């Protein structure tokens, strides 16, 4: 784009020259892109891992043939910026909508504040009628707002201490823990609720991988939500079973009298030196939410996790969580959306209460380092 038309490019307005430097990634760009990624994400990053690259950009089941997944900005034969997208199918009031998460934006430091980021982002914005952003930084937030995105707020984090001594030590004393924990935690015993769940016939079982039973669950559970990303078997298999570091995740089905009524995906993590469990995703019919959450918390307790953390946005689940002794523990992940202004579901999609979003949506829960 710069080569043969160099004379004309010099006379072109700056913005047009930068826009002309942006192109959809092609396999022949792999080597210069790898050099850029090694320098700016780090040699050990997931962006530099071929398995991750293939999984994220080539094997996504919601990718549509021919549609770009990654854009790069080339200047003087070098990659100076990149912008990726993660296609997703949304279920919105019984309709399937194609959308894209914006991911992996990076600009060479020498090219920041020179329009490369906006030019890459403009290509992403043209890629889909519904654009989504999770973990939007403060710097990107302002740009998005000016570009017509709607800020739907931050994903609240809920914490459920399981080992009070360990949590108190991590926080610097029991007084601090007591101030954070509401009285409800005393009344809401996950273990007791799990017992009630089992009395009703609920149980939880670890699974090695998702299977076709997830499709039946999806058909039954999706209508209980107004807008959420598709979580059928194919989607879950790609996200949690085919991911290069699939060993990070523990998968569970929740059953009621032998039938799958929910799933949960958890990930062991460290928090202030304590072993904790993060619930990165779950789905169930609304009537089974209490039992699922109680069983999940109980499963974490049996693994001797000091606490359970859950980061999720949507619906009535906070009420269920508080009843189980969880308390709000801040928020760190911003969620933004931009449907095309004429989109038939624009109002639904820009209403925060419409959404069910968990940490595993988009790339927020992907490891920063490549799997060993």
């Amino acid at each position, binding site marked *: 784009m710069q080569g043969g038309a160099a004379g004309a490019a010099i*006379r*072109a307005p*700056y*913005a047009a020259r*930068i826009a002309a430097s942006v192109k959809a990634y092609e396999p022949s760009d792999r080597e210069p892109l790898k050099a850029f990624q090694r320098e700016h994400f780090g040699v050990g990053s997931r962006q530099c891992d071929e398995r991750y690259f293939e999984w994220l950009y080539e094997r996504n089941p919601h990718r549509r043939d021919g549609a770009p997944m990654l854009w790069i900005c080339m200047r003087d034969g070098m990659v100076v910026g990149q912008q990726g997208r993660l296609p997703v199918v949304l279920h919105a009031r019984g309709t399937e909508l194609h959308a894209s998460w914006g991911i992996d934006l990076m600009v060479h430091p020498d090219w920041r*504040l*020179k*329009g490369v980021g*906006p030019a890459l982002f403009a290509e992403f914005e043209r890629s889909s009628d519904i654009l989504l952003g999770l973990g939007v930084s403060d710097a990107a937030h*302002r740009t998005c707002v000016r570009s017509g995105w709607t800020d739907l707020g931050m994903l609240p984090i809920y914490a459920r201490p399981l080992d009070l001594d360990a949590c108190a030590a991590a926080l610097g004393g029991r007084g601090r823990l007591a101030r954070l924990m509401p009285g409800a935690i005393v009344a809401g015993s996950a273990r007791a609720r799990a017992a009630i769940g089992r009395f009703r016939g609920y149980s939880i079982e670890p699974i090695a991988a998702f299977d076709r039973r997830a499709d039946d669950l999806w058909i039954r559970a999706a209508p209980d939500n107004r807008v959420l990303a598709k979580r059928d078997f194919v989607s879950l298999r790609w996200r949690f079973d085919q991911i290069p570091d699939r060993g990070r995740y523990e998968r569970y089905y929740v059953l009621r009298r032998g039938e799958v009524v929910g799933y949960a995906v958890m990930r062991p993590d460290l928090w202030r030196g304590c072993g904790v469990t993060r619930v990165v995703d779950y789905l169930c019919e609304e009537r089974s939410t209490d039992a699922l959450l109680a069983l999940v918390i109980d499963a974490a307790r049996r693994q001797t996790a000091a606490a359970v953390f859950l980061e999720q946005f949507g619906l009535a689940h906070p009420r269920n969580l508080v009843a189980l002794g969880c308390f709000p523990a801040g928020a760190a992940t911003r969620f933004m959306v931009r449907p095309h202004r004429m989109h038939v579901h624009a109002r639904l999609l820009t209403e925060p209460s419409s959404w069910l979003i968990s940490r595993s949506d988009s790339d927020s829960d992907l490891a920063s380092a490549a799997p060993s």
Partner: protein
Amino acid sequence: MLEIKEQVRSFVRANFYVPEDLKLSDDASLLEHGIIDSTGVLELVTFLEDRFDITVDDAEMVPQNLDSVESISSFIGRKKG
């Protein structure tokens, strides 16, 4: 030069968020005050190229040329001179 400064100042005030209590003096940093970001820089350069009939080169896209009303005006003066 005074006219260039006023045109630049008017453009900035009309197109970017400038806090009411900020006087936007000639040497106030547009970046440090959060008035322009990466997208804003692009809009600013497009305005300068259109209004003053200049072409901004890659190497000229530096804060020394674009970070304040004063530096922008001087930059335009040099390009036009």
